Each structure stands twice: as structure tokens, then as C-alpha cells.
């Protein structure tokens, strides 16, 4: 992969990495509660570089809270988050993109009034260096970097088969397509760490298979480490390298799909609420 100069910071080694093996993400003793309701309770685990890491658990287990804490939308009560060699008590959301982290949301978080192409290209706006004035006047540098961003966005549309929807306002598209647009927006900046919050909710089997392929490619060819919340246990088992299981805000299992399948604590937690596995969270 040839990287353009603007991507160079991605390839630089991180300054200080406390763990023995370099990890893309580590959470250490993360606790979080909302007005007395505990969402996360001392959760610790690591995500190795290049890994596809699934986070599963019954409804309300704290999976989304975990991603929200990692992306700085929630401020943990205690514990730390390690991202790319930096340690945070509260992750600064504004710096996520610069840290090479991007994410999708459980409920779509798209820019409804903008076209598909604009939505995806927005994922690169933080890299643009030209000032407002240069953009308005149309200086060559501003035009060039913009054209470059849109070229990348178009390439990603092609990758996710979104060319037909290119100029449509995103609010007018079907749910499944919007999900893919959001993934495209997250991928366009070539993140080192990609957080996916139920990317396949509400998708058909074919769509799921297609998306599974896309996620693999994102890891294998785009070099993204992936953290994935997903309810479809079949997808999770087939796709992920390691799985973390949350229940009532606690980490009750952590290991390979094989290990998780045989983990008694996980089986106990799930047997009671087995119907939730397919039902989806719906919140």
C-alpha cells in the first residue's frame, strides 16, 4: 500500500507503549455509572494490532457504553483507556480522528441533509489543511486536497457498492444502505482502529455476508484493527479473532471463539437470556 504524505503519521511508531506486545487499544479497570445504574464495572481487556475483536453480551450489558467510553462520548468514573500509546482518563473525542480511530454508531449517525458522497468525504475533512478563505477563493492547494478527498471517497463508494446512491441525500436511503454509508465514512480516513457498534443490525443474511467480507478486507488490506459489537453469534464466531463477553457491566469471558464457546460463565449468562441473542437490542 502506498500512502500519501498526509497519511504518514499513521505509520510512525507510537511514542511509548507500556504493554509488552503493542496493542491498538487497551482498557484498564473501566467503570462507568449513570445516576446509580452501573454500566461498566472494572472492565479490562486489550485489542492487539490487526485483530478483529468482538464484544458481545446480553441487552444492557454495557457494550455500547464501552465503545462510547473508548470514543470519549462518556467519561468513565475510573479506569484508563490506552489508544495508540497514549493513556487517557477521558478520551478527547475531538482528537479521535487524529489518533486514527473512527467508529460507527448503533443508531445511525449520518448527516442526513448531505449526499452520500459528501457524508463519506466528511470523514476526511479533518485532514484538510486549507483555510476557509483559501477554500472560498479556490486556491490551487485547496482545490487539489479537496479533489483528492473526493477521489478517496469515490473509491470507497465503489468498494461498498454505493456508487448508485452517490448524489442522493442520505436521509432518503433505505436503512441497510445508510449503514454502509456510515461504514464508508468511518473507513475513508483509513483508521488504525475501527469501532463498529452493531454494524449488521437490521440487515438481511446476504447483506450480512457481504458486510462480513468488507470488514475482513478492511482489516487485511486497509490495516485496520477492528472492535465489533454484534448480536449475530454466527457472524461473531466466524469473523473475530478474540471475543470479550460483558454481562451487567462486567467482563465475564475473554478469549478465542473456541474458548468462549466452552466458557461456563458465558454459557450461564447467555442461557438465561438466549432469546436476546437474535432479538437485537432495539434501544
Amino acid at each position: 500500500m502506498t500512502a500519501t504524505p498526509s497519511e504518514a503519521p499513521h505509520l510512525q511508531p507510537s511514542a511509548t507503549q507500556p504493554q509488552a506486545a503493542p496493542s491498538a487499544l487497551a482498557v484498564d479497570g473501566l467503570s462507568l455509572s449513570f445516576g446509580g445504574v452501573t454500566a461498566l464495572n472494572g472492565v479490562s481487556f486489550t485489542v492487539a494490532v490487526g485483530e478483529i475483536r468482538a464484544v458481545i453480551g446480553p441487552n444492557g450489558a454495557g457494550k455500547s457504553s464501552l465503545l462510547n467510553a473508548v470514543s470519549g462520548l462518556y467519561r468513565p468514573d475510573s479506569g484508563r483507556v490506552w489508544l495508540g500509546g497514549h493513556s487517557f482518563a477521558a478520551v478527547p473525542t475531538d482528537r479521535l480522528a487524529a489518533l486514527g480511530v473512527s467508529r460507527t454508531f448503533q443508531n445511525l449517525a449520518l448527516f442526513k441533509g448531505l449526499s452520500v458522497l459528501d457524508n463519506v468525504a466528511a470523514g476526511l475533512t479533518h485532514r484538510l489543511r486549507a483555510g476557509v478563505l483559501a477554500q472560498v477563493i479556490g486556491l490551487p492547494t485547496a482545490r487539489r486536497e479537496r479533489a483528492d478527498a473526493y477521489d478517496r471517497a469515490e473509491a470507497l463508494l465503489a468498494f461498498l457498492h454505493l456508487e448508485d446512491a452517490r448524489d442522493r441525500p442520505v436521509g432518503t436511503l433505505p436503512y441497510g444502505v445508510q449503514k454502509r454509508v456510515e461504514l464508508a465514512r468511518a473507513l475513508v480516513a483509513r483508521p488504525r482502529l475501527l469501532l463498529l457498534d452493531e454494524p449488521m443490525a437490521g440487515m438481511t443474511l446476504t447483506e450480512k455476508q457481504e458486510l462480513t467480507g468488507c470488514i475482513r478486507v478492511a482489516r487485511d488490506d486497509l490495516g485496520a484493527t477492528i472492535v465489533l459489537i454484534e448480536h449475530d453469534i454466527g457472524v461473531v464466531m466466524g469473523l473475530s479473532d478474540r471475543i470479550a463477553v460483558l454481562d451487567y457491566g462486567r467482563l465475564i469471558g475473554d478469549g478465542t471463539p473456541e474458548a468462549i464457546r466452552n466458557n461456563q460463565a458465558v454459557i450461564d449468562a447467555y442461557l438465561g437470556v438466549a432469546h436476546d441473542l437474535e432479538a437485537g437490542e432495539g434501544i
Partner: protein
Amino acid sequence: MDWSFFTEVLVGGLLSGVMYSLVAIGFVLIYKTSGVLNFAQGALLLFAALTFVSLTERGLPFWAGIALTLAAMTAIGALIERTVLRPLVNQPPITLFMATLGVSYVIEGAAQLLWGTQVHGLDLGIDDLPLEIGGVLISTFDLFAAAVAGAMVAGLTLFFRYTRIGLGFRAVADDPLAALAVGLSLDRIWTAVWTASGVVALVAGLLWGARLGVQFSLSLVVLKALPVLVLGGFDSIAGAIVGGLIVGAVEKLAEVYAGPLVGGGIEGWIAYVAALGFLLIRPAGLFGAKPVERV
């Protein structure tokens, strides 16, 4: 510093703050059940006062005037709810707000087209004589207004706590979908809420009308209520009361002590600036809970 004078100003401010709370409560009732910041509350207040005055001037007895005006207010409330708010259900709150801005224009225009634009005096039979309590001079009218407001808040509280419709109201305020699911009739509850806010508009309109004269500028008291709401939170009746007291006191104290330094007339904006300063420290207001963003 002259403390007895200070107390007098403070008490006067608190009492006029009650008048602000009165207007603000009308907002809160609607906001809690339908999530609408009803800018037309001021226009409704004007309409109520103008209708009542015009009816009594035409020889209707006091209570008949009250009853007819209330009926009119309920009808208008239902009309707004059916024709404006219902078609806009599920729209962003700010759209609903702008719609009520349109409603306020319509009501203001209609009220004056119907009853004329001249200023009406309104005499509720309360003399505005200063009363001395513990060495502090207090306006009788202010005391009366405060008592009426207190009675109204007590009445509303009882209504919402102990009647079926009132409980329904609280359920709707909490979770409209759940309320619908357990079979509460939203129609009846909304009608009740609009009636209640009509009552509040009428009471506030009469008190404010007796104070300022019944005229177009009466609808501008809505501008006095907005900082109160910002301070107390849009969805808290207690907040509306406390907010009103604070705004009243700040306004009077600032006017008396800071006003002369800058040339006076600061009551037009001091409440906004105070509310704004407060908001910057506590973005959710006095009583509002910090919302948890669900993503």
C-alpha cells in the same frame, strides 16, 4: 448600605417575580406533555385578558366573563393542538417552536381585530396601597397576586397528583409511548393540559392586565418568562417558581443599584444576561437533569 431599603427592593422584586412565574408555568405545562416551547403563551394571555375585559365591558357579570373566556381559551387550545401541533408531530422541537411563533402572530392579530387595539383598564377591585409589614413597605396588589399564584400552583399540584387526568398527564410527560400503550387517552390529556394552560393564561392575563392595562404589549410578558424558563428548566414547575423569584429579585436589585450607573432601563436584558451567565455554569438550568446522550 440601607438594609431596610434593600429588603424592600428585594421583597418587591420577589413579588413581581411571582408574576413572571405565573407566565412561565403556562409554558411548563405544555412543554412537559408535548415537548413544545409554546411561544404563543404570551399571545394567549393577551387574548384571555382582552376577551374578558371586552365581555365585562359589554355588561357581562364577572363570573360569566370568566367562564366564557375559559371556554374560548379551551377551544383555542384544542384548535392549536389539532391544526398546528398534531400535523407537526415528530418534527424537531425547534420547528414546533417556530410554529408557535406563527400561532402567536395569528392570535395577536385576531385578538385585536376582534376586540380593537385600544387600551382597556382592568380593575380587579384590589387597591394598590402600600402595606407596612415589619418596617418594609409592600404593595397590596403584589401580595394579592402572589396569593393567587400560590393558590393556583397548589390547585395544579393537587390536580396533577390526585385526579385521573392529572396522573395521566404525568405519565404522558414521562413517556408518551408507554402512556399510549397502557391505554391512556392522549386526546383527553392534551385537552386537559391546554385547558389548564388556558386557565393559567387567564389568571396571568388578568393580573398583568390589571397592572399594565390590557393592550398589545401584554403579549410581550412572554419575553419576561423566557429567562425564567432558562433558569428553572423548561420542564419544572418548581423551577418556574424559583426561577421567577430569582429573575424578579435580580431585575429589581439591578435596576435600583446598578441601573443608575449605566443610565437605567436595564430590566429589558439583565434577566437574560443573568440567566445566560448561570447557564454557562450549569447548562441544564437549576432543576434540569443533565441529559445522557444515547448513541
